[in-house]
C-alpha cells in the first residue's frame, strides 16, 4: 500500500464525498444531498460526475459498494480503510496548512 500522502491534495468535491461517506454508507442521491448540506450548497453534484468520482475512488480502493436498502439501481457506497487513511492524511495536511497560515492574518 502506497503512502496516502502521494495522492494529496484532494479536490474539494472528492474530500467532501469521503467526508460524508465516512459517516456511513449512502446511495447516490444521499451523497448528493449530504455534500450539498455539508458544503452549504457550495458543491452541487450532478449524477454523471458523481459516478465518475465514485468509479475512480472504487478503482483506487477508497470506497467500495455494499448492500443498501434501495433497489438494484440505487447503488450504495461505503468508505474503505484506505479511503479513511486518505481522508485523514488530507485533513491533517489541511490542518497543518491552516495552522501555518492563520498567524499571517494577525
Amino acid at each position: 500500500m502506497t503512502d496516502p500522502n502521494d495522492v494529496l491534495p484532494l479536490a474539494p468535491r472528492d474530500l467532501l464525498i469521503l467526508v460524508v461517506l465516512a459517516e456511513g454508507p449512502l446511495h447516490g442521491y444521499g451523497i448528493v444531498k449530504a455534500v450539498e448540506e455539508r458544503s452549504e450548497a457550495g458543491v452541487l453534484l450532478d449524477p454523471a460526475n458523481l459516478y465518475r468520482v465514485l468509479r475512480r475512488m472504487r478503482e483506487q480502493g477508497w470506497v467500495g459498494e455494499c448492500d443498501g436498502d434501495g433497489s438494484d439501481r440505487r447503488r450504495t457506497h461505503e468508505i474503505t480503510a484506505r479511503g479513511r487513511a486518505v481522508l485523514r492524511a488530507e485533513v491533517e495536511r489541511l490542518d497543518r496548512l491552516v495552522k501555518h497560515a492563520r498567524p499571517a492574518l494577525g
Partner: protein
Amino acid sequence: MLRLYRASLRLLPREVREEDGAAIVATLEDQLAGASTETERTRIWLRAFVRLPGAAMGMARDARSVRGSGRGNPQGGGDGMYGMIRTLRLALRTLMKAPAFTWASVLLLALGIGAGTAAFGIVDHVLLRPLPYPQAERLVYMTNGSHSGPTLRRLDAVHAFDAWVATSEATLNLARPDAEPVRVRGAEVTASFFSVFGATPTVGRVLVEGDEGGPDIVVLTHDAWQRLWGGDPAVVGSTIELAGRSGEVVGVLGEDFVPPQALTGRDVDVLYPMNWNNPNLERPGYHAHSVVGRLAPGASIEQADADLVRVADDVMAAYAEHYSEYSEPVRWPVEPLAAITVGEGITRGLALLLGAVALLLLVACSNVAHLFLARGIGRTQEMSVRRALGASTRALVGQLAAESAVVGAAAGIGGVALAWLTLRGFGRWTTALPRGEAISMDLRVVGFALLLSTATVLVFGLLPAIRSTRRDLHRVLRSGARGASSSRTVQALRSGLVVGEVAVSLVLVTLAGLLMRSFVEVARQDTGIVSDNVVMVPLSVSAPETGDAYVQMMTTITEAVRQVPGIETATWSGELPFENVGGSSCCWAMRAQLTEDDEPTRLAGHSVDEYFFSTFGTELVAGRNFLPGETEPVAIVGERTAIRGWGSAQAALGEIIEARGEARRIVGVAEHTLHYGLDIPHDITAYIPLWQNPFSMPWASLAVKTRGDASGLHDDLRAAIWSVAPELPIPTVTTLDAMIDESTSTRRFGGALATSFGVLALVLAAGGLYGTLLYSVGEQRRAIGIRLALGAGRRRIERAVVGRALTLGAGGVVVGIALSWYVTRFLESFLFRVAPRDAVSLVGAAAVLLAVTAVAAWFPARRAAGTDPLETLRVE
C-alpha cells in the same frame, strides 16, 4: 426529458454506461423527486445536461490513466475549464485569420437556422401548443354546423361531456351615453363558457347560472374595455344599449383571456347570457349555436360520438315532421377544438412551410459542410505537422470541434436574431392565421434554435473536420510543400453536395413557380363584375320583428342613398359579392336538381333587388331583370346554370326551378359571376327577388356605384344613411376592388413566401457552387499553370471550368426534377388551374438553375484563365 438524458448517457464510455448508467439515472430521478420547486428542478436538469459532456471526457481520461499508470488524476478536473478557454481562444484566433471562410459559414448557417427557427416558432404556436384553456386537450367541437335549441336542451344526456358550452356570435350596435354608436362583435354564451375556458374577471364578475335574457347583462372583454371605455373601472354597473335593448355591464374579463376563435371569433367585444326564452330555441330548424364539450376524465371521443348519435336520434324522433325532408339521419361527430381552430388547410400549409424550410436548411448545411471540407483539406498539412510534433488526435479534434462550436454559436445567435425579425415581420399577417396573435419568440423557440445549431454544427462541421485529421500522415508529408490535391473520395463528396444543393433548390424554385402561377391564374379570373367605382357599406341594423319590416327599412335606406348627387345607383342585400370570401354559401344554398335527368347539385342562392345587376355591372345575357315589387315567383339564373340545365341561356327562359322552397319561373339569365372569392367556383346559382322571401337579420349590406371617383362621397353617403336611420353606427366604406384584392391575400402571401424561399435557395446554391469551384480551381492552379504554359488557350480553360459546373448543375437538375415529381403532389390543394406537375414551372425552374450555375461558374472560370503560368511554376 429523462429519456433524452438517458440517451445522452451514450456519451459516456460504454463500460461506464453499462455499469453505472442505471444508477446515474436513478440518482437524477431521486434528485428531481427531492426538489421542492420548479426552479430547483430546472437547475438540476440544467446541471445534469451541461456537465454531462465534461464528465464523459473525464471518464474516458480516467479509464486510460488508471490502466496506464495505476494512478488516477486526483484533481479530477484536469486541464478542465482553463484548457477549454484556451482551446476556444485559439479557435477564435484561427477563425479570424480566415475571415471569408468564417463569415460565409456563419452567414449561411444563420440563414438556415433563422428560417428553421422562425418556421418552428410559427408551427409551435399554431399547431403544437395546447390551446390556452384548462384541460384544453379534452375540449371537443360538435361538427356539422350550428345547432338548434332542441339539440342544446338534450346535451346534458351526453355523459361523455362533463361540461358543454353553447355560443352564438353576432355583430351588434352598441350605444352609450355621450358617444357615437359603434358596431361591436358579441356572443351569446351559456354560463359554463367562463369555467370551461378559464375566463376570470379583472373587474366585476362573469356570468353565472341564472343570468338570463340576452344582452341585458353584459361582460366585456379586456380589449373592448380598453378600446371603448379607456379601461375605466366605473363601467361596471353602468347601463349601455346593445342591439336596441338596454343592458347592464357586470364585469370585465382578464387581459390574458384569449377568446376561443372557433366559437366567438378572436375579436369578440361583449358576452351576454343565453336567452333560453327565445322562441326560436323551440324550432328544430333554427341552427344558431356552436357547441364545445369537455370530455369527462377517461371519456373518449368515440363515447361522445356514440352519446351524440343517441341525442340526434332523440331530436329526430321528437321533430319527425321537420326531419322527414332529410335524406339521411343527422350526425354531429366531435373533433378536437384545437384541430377545428386551426383547420386542415392551415395545417397542410404549415407542414409545407416546414418542409420548405427543412430543404433550405439542408442547402445551407451542405454549403457549410462544403466550406469545412474544403478548409479541412487545406489544413491537412497543418494537421499533419502538428500531429508529427506530438499533438494527440484528441487535441486536434478538440481544436476543430472548438472552431465548429464558435461558428455554430455565432450562427445560432445570428439565426435567433433573424428568426426574431422574421416573426415580427410575420406579425403583419398573423390575422390571417388562427392563433397567429400568440406567435412570438420565446424560450421554447430559442431552445429549438439552440438544438438546431448544435445539430448542424455537429453533422456538417465536425464530421468533415475529423476526416481531415485522419488523413494519412506520411502521404501528406511526402507530397510536401506542393500542396496535396484532394483525394478522389473528397472530390466525389464535394460534387455530391453540389448536385444535392442544386436538386433541393430546384424543388423550392418549382414550388414557388407553381404557387405564383396559381396566383396569377386566380388574379386573372373574370369576375363577371365591373368593380370600378363600386363601394360597399356593411350595416349592422337592429333586426326588425318581421322580414317585411326589414326589407322596408333597407329599401328606404337604399332609396335615400340613391338620391345623393354623384351616385349612379345602389343595391342592398343580406350578402353581396366578395363579402363572404372563402365561404361557399351565406344566406341560402340548397341541393337542387335542375331537370329530371340531371344529377342533384349544390345551388348557391342570392336574394337581391332589381338594382343588383346594374350596380355590379353584371349583364343579363337573356330575358329580363326583376320588375319592381313583382309578386309572381320568379328567378334569374347564372349562365352556367342555364347551360347545365337546359343547354343554353335562351332555352332556360320560362323553365321552372325550385329555389328557396318554391317553384319559380326563370325570367332571366345573368352572365357568369364569382361571388365567394376568385378561386371558389360559383357555377350553379340563382337569384330571387328579396322581397319575395323576406328574412329579418341584424345585418345588411349596401353596394353603391358612383359616377367617377367615390372617395369624395363618403360623408354624403353617411349623411344620407343617417337621415333615415339615425341610430346606425358609423358605416365603414370599402371599395369593391379592395375587397376583391383582399380575397387573394392569403394566396399572395403563400406565393411570396415560397418565392422568397426559392430565391434564398438559389442564392445559397449559387454560393455553394461558386465556393467549390473557386476552391478546386485554386487547388489545381499548378495544373492549370502548366497547361497554360504548354500553350492551352485561356478560353479552353474557362470552358473546362464552366463545363464542369454545368455537368454538376445538370446532374442536380435531373435529381431535382425527379424529386419535384414526387414532392409537388402534396401541393395540389393549394394550386389553382395549374397541374402539380406543370411543365412550365418545372422547365422554368430547371432553366433558372442552369443559368445560375453558369453565372456562379463564370468568376472561378475567369480566375482560372487568369492564372499566371510563370508565377505558379516559380513556386516549384
